[in-house]
Each structure stands twice: as structure tokens, then as C-alpha cells.
């Protein structure tokens, strides 16, 4: 299959070779083997962290529905995601989310051709809920069940509703859980160039926000305050910038922010929170832009995909837009609701896997540390 081929022009089949499709179900299964085309309807389910999401996507690219039930408020009182709270909430939210996704897509269960779900990485208690429900639905409908890597799904958020997105590309996946640069050559052909050595970027945002006494979630609060502050007020370190490689580290930056604030407090000086927020955000943006551009130079591609929750950050968007314009790199940034965790990207990624004949056995287990391969 052509790496760039999303046209679904030729017919493609999924053969019932999986041992779990044997026995009395086989006869039905054989009748159901069918062509996969741009009318293929896939139900996506995403419960890897603190968003419960269900979505129906047609042909891997057209979003018919994308329902997201956020738990942000639930975790707000704890100032961070509590795994047990998240797992409990998914059990309650997923059934209505699936129903709503079907209603909005004007589809029934029996219209579906496959079910895709996030297998990992993520919180194990949360992943288990989505995987259990996806297996059950696929089993009842006797359609393929596809386990998807959450990071790979983020990459596919760039293809949803966006027919100009093309491989090969450098992908910056940046969120509360991940920060990584990937050289994506085509469907299922990825090379991880680098990632964070400690905190994910979004995690650093949340920790600094908490230290500054801002509300949870801290990322959007820092972004909002940054517009009011001076990004050059404090020169925080840009660690690892200029060094070879594509890894980043946020522990030093975090420490220098806390040291700076504590020193001012100790000296009895007033702290301009907006200036601190703006200067911190600028440091993160400078680090990410520098490493991303280095990755683009290294791979010699001309396309950049931005995805993950921190892609919503206005400073990062502006910084990358400017840098890409200067170097005539095509930048793709999905709309905000596709940057944060969502099931549409899972359905899209699952469709691409199915097209290559890949699907998952019903005894598969979610993996909280599933690597991107």
C-alpha cells in the first residue's frame, strides 16, 4: 500500500484468521468479510486518561460524531488526576457517551464495521473500562476489534477532516502525559526522535501553575496570564537547547521558576504572576520550537504535525506558525477538540490499521506503557 494512500480506491479485506473467530461464529464471520471503503464506519472509544470519549468516523477521515465527557471538574478539587476517581467516572460515563455518539452520527450499532479502542499508554484502571466495553460491543456485533496506540492515534488527529495532510512528517506530540518528536514516514512507520527526560510539557505547566496558586488545569491558566505578562521579564534557562539530539527536560526550568519566586518572597518583593507565567511559557515555547525545527532539519521533511493537549497553547501555536512560515514548512494543527484526548482520532487510527489487515484478539490486555512502534 502506498504510504500516502488514503483514497480507499482499491478494495481491501480483513480475513477472519484470528483464532477467536472460530467455532459457530465462523460461518457468520465469513459472510461478513467485506470491502473496506470510504463508507467504512468505525466506532472509536477513548478512556486512557481523564476524558471519556466515543466517536463514529467514516472512512477514517470524516467525523460523524465525537462525544467527549471531560472529568476536569471532578479532578479539579484534587489539583490533579486521581486514577481511582478517573476509572470510576469512566464506568459511569462511557455507556451514555457511546449512545450519544451513535445518535449524533445517525447510526445504529448494526451499521458499524469495526470498534477501535485505546489499548495504551495511559492509566491502567481507565484503559480497562474502554477496552472491556469495546470488546463486548465488537463481540456482540461480530465485527473486528482494534486496539490502538494512544500516541499513534494523536498523530491521526491531523488527518481528520483534513485532506491536505500528507506523510512524511515530523510530529510533535505534546500533552499532559507526553512530549515526543516522531518522524512519521507513513502509516505504521514511525521513528521516535526524542522526548522528555522527565516531565511532559503539560505536566510542567500544571506543576508551575499549582506552585503559582493558579486553578487546575494549570496550562490554560498560564496561557491566559501570559497574554497579560511580559515574556522577557525573567530569563529562565532553556536547557538542552543547542545540544545535539531531540530530547527535552523540564525539571531544571521548573526548579528555576520556584527558586525565582521563593527568592523574591524572601527578599520581600512583590511577584508579578503574569510576568512569571509569560516568561515560563516563553521558555517552554523556545525549547519546543528549537527541538522541533532541529528535527525537521534532521529528517529533511517539509511537513509538521502538531498534536496533543498542549497544542492548544497559544504561545506554542504562534511560535511554531512563525518558525514554519520562515522556513516554508507546512504546519498542520488540528482544531482544539481534536488536540485533547478524543475518540475520533482513535477511530481514524483504527481504520488505518484495519486497512492494513491489522486487528486485535479478544484476549488482548491494555498496556499502560504501550510503546509507539
Amino acid at each position, binding site marked *: 500500500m502506498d504510504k500516502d494512500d488514503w483514497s480507499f480506491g482499491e478494495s481491501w479485506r480483513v480475513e477472519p484468521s484470528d483464532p*477467536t473467530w472460530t*467455532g*459457530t*461464529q465462523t460461518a*457468520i464471520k465469513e459472510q461478513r468479510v467485506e470491502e473496506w471503503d470510504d463508507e467504512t464506519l468505525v466506532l472509536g472509544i477513548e478512556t486512557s486518561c481523564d476524558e471519556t470519549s466515543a466517536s463514529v468516523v467514516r472512512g477514517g477521515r470524516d467525523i460523524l460524531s465525537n462525544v467527549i465527557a471531560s472529568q476536569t471538574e471532578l479532578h479539579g*478539587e*484534587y*489539583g*490533579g488526576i*486521581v486514577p*481511582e*476517581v478517573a*476509572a*470510576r467516572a*469512566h*464506568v*459511569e460515563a*462511557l*455507556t*451514555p457517551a*457511546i*449512545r450519544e455518539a451513535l445518535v449524533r452520527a445517525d447510526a445504529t*450499532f448494526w451499521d458499524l464495521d469495526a470498534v477501535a479502542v485505546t489499548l495504551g499508554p495511559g492509566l*491502567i*484502571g481507565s484503559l*480497562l*473500562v474502554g*477496552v*472491556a*466495553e*469495546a*470488546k*463486548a*460491543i465488537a*463481540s*456482540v*456485533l461480530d465485527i473486528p476489534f482494534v486496539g490502538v496506540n494512544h500516541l499513534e492515534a494523536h498523530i491521526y488527529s491531523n488527518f481528520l477532516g483534513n485532506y491536505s495532510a500528507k506523510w512524511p512528517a515530523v510530529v510533535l506530540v505534546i500533552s499532559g502525559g507526553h512530549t515526543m518528536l516522531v518522524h512519521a514516514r507513513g502509516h505504521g512507520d514511525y521513528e521516535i526522535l526524542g522526548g522528555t527526560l522527565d516531565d511532559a510539557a503539560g505536566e510542567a505547566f500544571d506543576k508551575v501553575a*499549582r506552585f503559582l496558586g493558579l486553578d487546575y488545569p494549570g496550562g490554560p491558566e498560564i496561557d491566559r496570564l501570559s497574554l497579560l505578562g511580559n515574556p522577557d521579564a525573567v530569563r529562565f534557562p532553556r536547557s538542552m537547547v543547542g545540544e545535539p539530539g531531540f530530547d527535552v527536560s523540564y525539571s531544571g526550568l521548573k526548579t528555576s521558576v520556584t527558586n525565582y519566586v521563593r527568592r523574591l518572597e524572601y527578599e520581600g518583593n512583590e511577584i508579578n504572576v503574569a510576568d512569571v507565567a509569560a516568561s515560563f511559557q516563553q521558555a517552554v515555547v523556545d525549547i519546543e520550537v528549537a527541538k522541533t525545527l532541529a528535527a525537521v532539519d534532521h529528517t529533511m521533511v517539509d511537513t509538521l504535525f502538531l498534536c496533543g493537549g498542549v497544542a492548544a497553547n497559544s504561545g506554542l501555536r504562534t511560535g511554531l506558525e512563525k518558525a514554519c512560515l520562515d522556513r516554508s514548512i507546512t504546519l498542520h494543527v488540528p482544531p482544539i477538540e481534536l488536540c485533547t484526548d478524543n475518540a475520533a482520532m482513535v477511530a481514524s487510527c483504527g481504520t488505518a490499521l484495519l486497512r492494513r489487515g491489522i486487528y486485535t484478539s*479478544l*484476549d*488482548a*490486555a*491494555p498496556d499502560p506503557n504501550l510503546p509507539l512502534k
Partner: protein
Amino acid sequence: MLVLGIETATPQTSVAIGSEQGVVASALVSRAALDGPQHKSGAIYNEWLMPAIRFCLEGAGIGFRNIGGVAVSLGPGLYTGMRVGVATAKALAQALSVPIVGMASLDLLAYEVRYSPRPICAVLDGRRKEVFHAFYRPSPGGIQRMTEYTVERAEQLANGIASKPGEVLLVGNGALLYREIFEELGSSVEIGTMGHAFPRAAALVELALPRLYREDFDSLDGLKPLYLRHSAKRIQWERIRESRSA
């Protein structure tokens, strides 16, 4: 009516399909007798559950279309196991458009020893040195629950039993785990054997059938596991607060 029952709330877990004529297929695995933390986790049932359900359907020579209702054990028990069971049951009921019924794991335990003349106390290991329990008395055709579902230390349960006159039958893996504590109460206490240590899906199907016939269904969206501890949030919250002040 054929009912599919799912019980994954404890280290012994089972699936059964049955009607008023009895169980037509069942599968059961127990990790209780095996060592190692991987056998104590409810997560492992995620791998086993759907293949086991398909095994039962195939064994009985039927398909999902023959299932008229789904019954699920809500716990109390292992949090992860409960979630896998409840999530699976909900999705099955949703995709099949059939009613769902949730039952407490402790009710299933007590139901299977209902022919005892003694009052019954169902006791499951709740970890953290605690047990989940409830008291029952046999009633015509079944059992009647006398107390709330409770989580407390085995010693507290033993004190509660000691303070009341009369005999009692303790069943469940919690009773066996803390056997020494309960045996100190003397001959008024009888402890059920390993054969009755865990709730079973066969009992779940039997108990769910009358509820399904009288249309006493649970709401699909509202159904959730019986955790009994609301403190998980609070414990976490306190931990976060501690780490923040540290």
C-alpha cells in the same frame, strides 16, 4: 429466557448462561490458590472474560441473539475486577438492547448457603486488613438481607457478632482469611468451607431471573460497582496535600 451472568469481583471469577431450567453453560477460573501479585489483580480477568463468554455461547450452541438479559455482580470486591465486569455487562446489554440487572456479590454468597438453619453472614476479603460483609436470614424461597453492606476490620465484625446472642454461619473468603479471629467466638460460629468461599455466576443467573421476569431492571447508565469505600478519593486528596506541603 436465557440470562448471561458475569461475576468478576473476586479472585475466583465466573461466567454462566442459564434459564429457569438451570445453567446451560458456565466457565470458572480461580486465581485465589495461586501465588504472586499478578494473580490477585482483577485486571487479568479482562483477558479472560470475553473469550470465556464466547466459550459458553459456543458450548451451549447459541449466539448472543439468544440472550434475553444480562446479570452482573456489582461487588463489593476487587475494584478492577468489578469495573471490568460491570463495563463488559453494560456494553453487552447496550449492544444487544436487553435489560441489565446488578446484584451484590455478598448476596450471591449467602444465597448458596440458604438451607442453613442459622443466620448467615457473607464475608469477603476487602484487603487493607478489612472485610466486606452483610447479614442475612433464610426466608421462603431465598434469603433476606438484614444489614447494610459494610466494610470494617475483621475484629470489628467479630465484636459485633459476639455482642449478639445466637448462632451464625460465616461464608466467604474473608471468613476463611480471618478464621482465627472468628473461631475465638466459640461454637456459636460456624465457618463455611472453601467450596462456598466465592460468589458464582450460576447463583447470579438464578437470582437475576425473577427480577428480569418482574421487570425489576437496573438503569443502564446508572449502574455502577459497589465500592463501599468513598474514602479512596479522600485518601488520595490527603496524599496530594501532603506532597504539596512537603
